[in-house]
């Protein structure tokens, strides 16, 4: 471009004075100030001030020249490095190639920014040599494709300026830079500008002599409280509020604690979402942590088959995706899916489970998922992902508020950014594209912009050192954090880095850099500075103040009174203002409730552990949420065995039938019965072929062992009923029972009736039938209340657990004719049995009456192993948990 043209037209602007800043945040602050100044001077409109961050200016300057080369984004570079790492013979030994790629890229950036020629550096170690290999591979691709990395940019701009290909401004003010601390490539830009006649002026921070207070606080929380108490007062009293910077070595690490204290003391309304907060964290959280991102990334993972239950839950329960009323429906679907006990969930099952009003969205999603190609360009995947999101209605049908809107916009931008990887990645499978999309979301910080004043900025020491403000707090100024240990790269010989003046190459240079930073923090940022350090770290380890901020005797131990807001001052130190109700009784069951009750033997089981449990489960309908299963569900296994036995006894009929069949034939029958039931209980669509086969084999062995065991019973028996339904009434409590099996037994003492309950899971223990410790009331209930009468069975003469445990089948019985069904001689114990029956009947009726009367007390001996221990959450009692060291 000719000078004449420049004078004549738009490019004149580039001849004006330009301000370049060390950080984008500083540029923003200066722009804010400049605009304010203009408005205060009375101008209604003005040309926007020409202030930019140095790196941003480099990009703008370079791209304004319409170069043929393409500037790569960080992710694009990472793709190249990952590719180089993965192609290398060493990659199979690496735990995380992506982490290695990231580290290698960091090393490469150091080399480029500091203009170090790698080939002239020594290569002592495997790390040095392999890195060269990777770098050559990356360089080859960069060159082939005419690509440029961000670390090359300064050098490139310097070259263009030197060549005269870029118009240079008349004057540049450099603000916020530590003098002579620029890496070589950036210094070259400044040198080139000067050579072209630009007046470059380093604007030094005003030499302030701030009042510096150095405080040692007891712990991290009191440090934040101390600062917040001070801020609270200053913000309240100053108008306009002061510009405050809170600087930390690791703002992300301190965020949760800091945010918690800030909310409590500076903006309690922020806790209820009722108002804006006056602080801002310079660096936002990762975009991937935003609920909209979570919903999006989850729905993109859904597949037609084999979805983890947790993934289905994540989509169904997303509050970012569904409205409150929709979520009531999706939560119901989730609960239903959990209850089925399937280890993997097909999308078709989700569609079946959701309410019909939502079904079309899931169906559309399934349709689009089915259309996915096996491999495609990232941009094509971006479009596909967008279509999937649209199909399910992401980001939901409700209007977005400002923060959500910005997040959604940023996430939609990721689809486009995925498209920028076309040339680097080529055609990839969907999973790879999704991983890179996640990587993009992880790499992007999200801090929504707001339209209210945020006078307090919380940022890193680096950022803060470039800023000017009214008040500066430096927190966590411990010797361990200031300076943090230098982190040189292992991929380049340390000597080479040191020679090039890379600060992190050696502790000495790193210290010098930090000292300069601290000098700026203490001398040029603010007229008033507080430097604080907690005496212990969050884990309680002692901490020393950093001597860079002042010698040991310059620090004052501060034991501030706990700063509290109105809320805390309303609370007592002792007991809170809670009322204990005099009476909190449970009303008796009335007729309406009784009619609606769905009581079964479980009610008694709960009752005998504690009436409170029976009340919660049967009157309030309180149950814990089913957990997604891992592998086969015990209930499914149990049902399979129950059903197979039901079918088998339907054929065998009695002990004679069982005795008449040999093991081989029995085995074949068992297999046949299992196969007949497998299809419904372990559908091939939800369970893999091998899983079904091994469970079939296990169930077969268990049933076969059990039937062999039953063969050894002394008394001939007839299986009269299986899965018998009975509806007795116990003390006016109607019950609905289902008995596994009832045998008519031919004993030497005459015909007897035996009720059998199969136990496929828990241990069968007849101590649970003891009247004083009735933990297994089910069989006693069947016996005592002639549950079989309705089915034409005259009485119950014995109860028996059929313990179907692999390798250890057992008949655990209590009868009125024989103690052990397989060995003992007969003995007429009718009297004792009848006594038991009477006692069982008594306690059952007492329990039923108690339940109906509203008894709901809690046995204090209930332990953590109780079947109902979860329900203790409804009290303030805790089970006496296992002692833990």
């Amino acid at each position, binding site marked *: 471009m000719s000078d004449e*043209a420049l004078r*004549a037209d738009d490019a004149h602007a580039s001849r004006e004075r330009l301000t370049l800043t060390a950080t984008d945040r500083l540029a923003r602050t200066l*722009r804010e100030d400049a605009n304010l100044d203009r408005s205060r001077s009375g101008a209604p*409109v003005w040309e*926007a001030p020409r*202030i930019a961050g140095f790196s941003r200016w480099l990009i*703008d300057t370079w*791209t304004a020249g319409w170069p*043929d080369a393409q500037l790569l984004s960080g992710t694009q570079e990472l793709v190249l490095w990952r590719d180089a790492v993965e192609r290398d013979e060493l990659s199979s030994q690496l*735990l*995380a190639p992506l*982490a*290695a790629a990231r*580290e290698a890229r960091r090393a490469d950036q150091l080399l480029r920014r500091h203009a170090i020629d790698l080939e002239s550096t020594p290569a002592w170690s495997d790390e040095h040599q392999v890195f060269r290999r990777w770098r050559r591979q990356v360089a080859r691709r960069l060159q082939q494709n005419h690509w440029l990395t961000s670390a090359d940019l300064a050098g490139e701009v310097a070259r263009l300026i030197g060549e005269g290909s870029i118009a240079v401004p008349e004057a540049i003010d450099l603000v916020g830079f530590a003098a002579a601390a620029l890496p070589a490539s950036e210094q070259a830009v400044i040198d080139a500008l000067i050579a072209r006649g630009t007046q470059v002026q380093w604007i030094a921070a005003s030499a302030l002599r701030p009042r510096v207070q150095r405080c040692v606080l007891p712990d991290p929380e009191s440090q934040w409280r101390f600062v917040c108490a001070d801020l*609270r007062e200053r913000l*309240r009293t100053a108008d306009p509020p002061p510009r405050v910077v809170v600087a930390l070595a690791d703002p992300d690490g301190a965020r949760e604690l800091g945010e918690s204290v800030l909310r409590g003391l*500076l*903006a309690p309304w922020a806790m209820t979402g009722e108002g804006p907060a*006056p602080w801002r964290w310079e660096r936002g*959280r990762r975009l*991937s942590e935003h609920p909209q991102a979570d919903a999006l990334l989850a729905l993109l993972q859904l597949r037609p088959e084999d979805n*983890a239950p947790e993934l289905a839950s994540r989509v169904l*329960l997303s509050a970012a995706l569904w409205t409150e009323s929709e979520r*009531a429906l999706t939560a119901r679907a*989730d609960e239903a899916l959990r209850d089925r006990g399937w280890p993997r969930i097909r999308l078709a099952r989700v569609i079946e489970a959701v309410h019909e009003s939502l079904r079309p969205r899931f169906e559309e999603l399934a349709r689009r998922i089915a259309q996915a190609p096996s491999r495609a360009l990232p941009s*094509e995947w971006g*479009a596909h992902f967008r279509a999937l999101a649209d199909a399910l209605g992401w980001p939901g049908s*409700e209007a977005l508020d400002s923060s959500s809107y910005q997040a959604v916009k940023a996430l939609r931008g990721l689809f*486009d950014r995925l498209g*920028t990887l*076309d040339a680097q990645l080529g055609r990839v499978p969907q999973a790879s594209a999704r991983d890179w999309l996640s990587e993009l979301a992880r790499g992007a910080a999200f801090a929504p*912009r707001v*339209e*209210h*004043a*945020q006078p307090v900025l919380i940022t890193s020491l680096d950022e803060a050192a470039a800023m000017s403000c009214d008040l500066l707090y430096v927190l966590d100024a411990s*010797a*361990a954090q200031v300076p943090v240990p230098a982190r040189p790269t292992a991929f380049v010989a*340390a000597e080479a880095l040191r020679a090039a003046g890379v600060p992190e190459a050696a502790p000495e240079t790193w210290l010098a850099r930090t000292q300069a930073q601290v000098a700026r923090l203490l001398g040029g940022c603010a007229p008033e500075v507080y430097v604080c350090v907690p005496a212990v770290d969050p884990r*309680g*380890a002692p901490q020393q103040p950093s*001597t860079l901020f002042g010698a040991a005797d310059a620090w004052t131990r501060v034991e501030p009174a706990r700063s509290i807001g109105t*809320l805390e001052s309303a609370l007592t*130190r002792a007991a809170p203002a*809670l009322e204990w*109700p005099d009476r909190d*009784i449970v*009303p008796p069951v009335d007729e309406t409730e009784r009619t609606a009750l769905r009581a079964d033997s479980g009610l008694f089981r709960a009752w005998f552990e504690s009436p*409170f449990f029976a009340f919660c489960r049967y009157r*309030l309908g309180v149950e814990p*949420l089913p957990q997604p299963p891992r*592998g086969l569900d015990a209930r499914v296994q149990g049902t399979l065995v129950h059903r197979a036995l039901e079918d088998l006894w339907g054929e065998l009929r009695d002990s004679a039938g069982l005795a008449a069949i040999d093991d081989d034939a029995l085995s074949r029958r068992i297999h046949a019965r299992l196969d007949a039931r497998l299809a419904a209980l372990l559908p091939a669509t939800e369970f893999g*072929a091998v899983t079904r086969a091994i469970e079939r084999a*296990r169930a077969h062995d268990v049933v076969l062992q059990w039937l062999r065991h039953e063969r050894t019973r002394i008394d001939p028996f007839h299986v009269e009923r299986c899965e018998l339904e009975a509806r007795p009434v116990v003390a006016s409590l109607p019950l609905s029972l289902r008995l596994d099996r009832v045998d008519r037994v031919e004993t030497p003492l005459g015909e007897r009736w035996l009720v059998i309950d199969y136990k496929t899971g828990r241990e069968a223990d007849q101590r649970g039938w003891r009247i004083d410790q009735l933990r297994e009331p089910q069989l006693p209930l069947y016996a005592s209340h002639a549950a079989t009468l309705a089915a034409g069975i005259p009485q119950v003469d014995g109860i028996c657990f059929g313990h179907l445990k692999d*390798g250890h089948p057992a008949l655990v019985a209590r009868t009125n004719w024989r103690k052990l069904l397989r060995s003992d001689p007969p003995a007429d114990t009718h009297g004792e049995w009848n006594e038991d029956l009477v006692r069982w009947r008594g306690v059952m009726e007492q329990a039923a009456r108690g339940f109906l009367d509203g008894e709901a*007390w809690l046995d204090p001996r209930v332990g953590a192993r109780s079947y109902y221990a979860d329900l203790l959450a*409804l009290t303030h009692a805790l089970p*006496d948990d296992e*002692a*833990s060291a």
Partner: protein
Amino acid sequence: MSDRVLPDAADRERALDLSRHALVMAPAGSGKTGLLVHRLLRALAVVDKPEQVVAITFTNKAAAEIRARVLEVLRAAQDGIDAHDPHEKALRLSARAVLDRDARLDWQLLAQPARLNALTIDAFCAQIGAQLPLLSGLGGGIAIAEDPRGLYLDAIARLFEEIEDASVPAADRDALARVLRLSGNRLDRLVEPLSAMLARREQWMGAAASTDEDWDAQDERALASLIEPALDALHRCIDEADQRALIDLLRDGAGHAEPLAWAASLGAWPGPDAEGLALLRRIADTLLTADEKIERRHLRKPKGVNKTSGFLPQLPYTLGFKSLLESRQGDEAFVHALRGVLSAPDFALPEELRALRTAWLRVLRRLAAHLRVAFAESQQADFPQLAQSALQALRPGGGVGDALLAADRSIRHLLVDEMQDTSETQLRLLESLTAAWTPGDGRSLFLVGDPQQSIYAFRKAEVRLFLRMWDEQRLGALPLTRLRLTANFRSQPTVVGWFNDAFERIFPRVTDPLRGAVPFASSVALRDADGEGGIEVAVHDDVDAEARAVAGEAARRLAPGRTVAVLARARSHLQPIIRALREQGLTPACQDIDPLAALPEVRDLFALARALWHPEDRLAWAVLLRAPFVGLSWAQMLELSRGRAGQPWPARITAALDEGALDADGRARLRRLQDALDATAAQRSLRAELADRTEAMWMRLGGPMGCTRAALDDVRQGLRCLREETRGGSIRDPERLERRLAELYAAPREGQVQLMTVHKAKGLEFDHVLLAGLNRTVPGELRPPLHLLDLPAATLLVPRPDEAWPPEHPARESSTRAFECLHALYSEARRNEGYRLLYVAITRARRTATLHLTAERDALTGAAKLKAHSFAAMLEPVIRAHIDTVVEREATRPVEPTSTGDTTRLAMPPRTPRLRADVQVPPETGLYQPIEVRTLRPSEAVLAAQEEPVEKRDEGDLYAQLVGTLYHEAMQRIAGEGLDAWRDAGDSRRGSMAAGLRRRGMPEPRVEPAVARVIELLSRTLASDQGRWLVSPKAWSRSEYPLAGLRDGRWISAVIDRCFEDEQGRLWVVDYKTRAEALIAHEHESYVAQGVERYRAQVTQYVELLRALRPGREVRGALYFVDADRLVEVS
């Protein structure tokens, strides 16, 4: 420290000698850390870089303390503070030398104490991994998973998914099925044991790499090395004459009774072979009483010998046998030896067990591989992986050692604290690091520890490693000088005297690495007696009485400058004491004792979170409704459920409110809840962030008003935990959340009495120690799926036999014996660790220690019952006489009738407190409230426009946007460079345009079409008079002109595409309008008309802005529709 000569002065001096590698045994109170710090200073004084001295210790806290001690000494030396104590003087001298070196080499240690390389072994491994990212395989930059359980679960889930994967070798799939069958095909039952194995994988990873043949070859040697000592022990207990006599008697009996028929084959005393072992078991079985558990079998009493066991009455062999038994009564060694024979394994493992082991090894190998995949995907690794990677990096086989580390990082002096708590991997790491060290090379190793304080087996510490080193006096090839400290500077002489006596009596007599047995080494009290001091035992009737007594004693002991600590073996043992202390008016300072999960306020908060997360979580909703801040009574809960018990709670609430159910109080409470739900649901961002919504709900419902100030802190801590676990807005893993909560403890608060577990107390000391729960136990460990035993001869790996093997299964007995033998050794090692834990507890005391126990009395003898494996049982030989005296004395007191309790109260349902229905959180007043910045500061639009003048990304069609952007840029360039330079309408700049489009995210397939489209638009513009006019030179012009302003109290901003002064002196504002696709001619009119309407306001605003900027000038606004080539003035 006193001036007197120390009993171990010579060893202490040698310990500071850098020319020797030292292994120091330093009991509690011997000033171990001080010694380490002194040696560290000596080392620092001779190295080139401070990083070349590495001090490794066990915890972050200990590492921080070492750094703090070093800095303290350096500062004191710098300040020239005098020291009077000879030890301090010497220390100061060493510090002075360090300062001199620092000054000479410009280390600036005091400014940069992070250069002091005192760190944990994990941090050290991470450091090696960072220095050697490739050799370690970590790649650099990998994160540490503090809670790796999720990764373990992931690996386990992936592993068992392979069962369906046909690409996995059939043998491996069969192995998976075999292992799954062990748990009844229930993967959930395998999760815990496999997770535990993954956490301990450093112990079996090496073993898993061995082949079946390797194992088979080792079995025989390993089993023999277990059997032979048992046979030898029996042999030693019975002399030849008795052997002969016993054999003769039994052989004689063989001819008389069937039960002894087996003895017919007895000739000589059975030899050490399979047959001999079987016979010896028969002999032992005949001599001992019957019981399922071997440890409960005792020598038969002569009167217990009868025909059932084969001894017919009055026959000579029976009388002889009885006589032999009579002579052996009380011979515990003999009984022990007989039990040893019974519990010894067979000489070979059954085939089925070996097949099971093969299956396990296949499964474990694949599991480890899956864990690596899980690490890779999450880019995280756990601590064992770090250690493994560090070890791998140092090439343990190659003898390269630390030569691979950067020159200025190569270790010159290595100091390791708490050496007794080292694991096998850590020891191998140390061996690797020092592998290349040669005598006289100026490098030194200093290892210090106390096997008596080895209490971290659960963290994979293995005391046998220390014992082996002590015994062999070397680490790898490095010779070690053994040094032993004996002085105790901590405790009063009476305390030292007591524990010397007590532990001498109860600790194992001899070292036994197999059983983790460490003999006791006594200390010499160096402290002068000063006031009260000693150890007492206090016996109580019940736990509550014990708690009251502990609290009472704590109150009594409190004095200015004195520290009082209550220690216990388990956290739960301290719970009653916390209550009792509070009742005494004392504030307990608990360290990791008060689990947050146990605090009602926190539990209610988490129930609220779960309820919000899952509307169908009926339990969570019920807890929420009962929480004090909602506070429904049981009757109200029932009313709410009447006829709706099948519905989820939110539906019940809505219905009840609609129907006006419940009493007024209930309705008011429900209404508040519903209002809070509605209000927090109304804000989209709040609703989507579970933690935020939980907090908002809790605040609105007045949750804080149900808290004390302390509880409020606990809730906030809980909320922080919730926030961390709900990144992404929702609960990802409820199990992990529960786990996190269970591991959270109420924040330590300052208090008068410190409470902690013995493990936590390690490394600390107190004036008064109150050891509570002496007669309580901790749960035993479950049997693991595999036991691995390292023996000098070989390694033995035995899986737990399949529980499904029926009693008659041929492999069952032998397999069980082998496994149980290893389990017994393991259990014994854990029991031995119990003694050491007790030692750690008591040696914390400077002045006094009181041992509190609750003991039930035996109904018959009145003796106190001491629970097996409790501290009290361990101390029984020392305290039995005392406690029986106390119990006897107590027994003479009249026993008060036990309260039967309030039966009416028993019948009541549990009550919980609640807040008033109208409770309000007091509003905060007088705080600064940020206001909208429209009038105060430049708006976001103003600042953003100035930040991103080029990329104005909007939602919509990216292609159209980028075509437009590029066209705008081209027009700006044309205006700057002149029309001549653009005669080809950009055709020669295709490459630049494509690069620009790619950079901005244009999908590759659309780049070329977009370039073509831009060129088409430019061609159209440049072919048109109007188009050329727009970009032709003017008296004044600007492109992409950024303006800002404050008009009518509102901040405004604009970036004007083009503005200029025309030939008539009028100012123009022009906005370009492009489209992605070309229009056909007949569409032009409507397109232009619509565009004008759509953009009129925008252009008008731009016109006004320019008018304000250039007052008094005529300003015209126009839209240039490129496709239609229409410049339309907008009035």
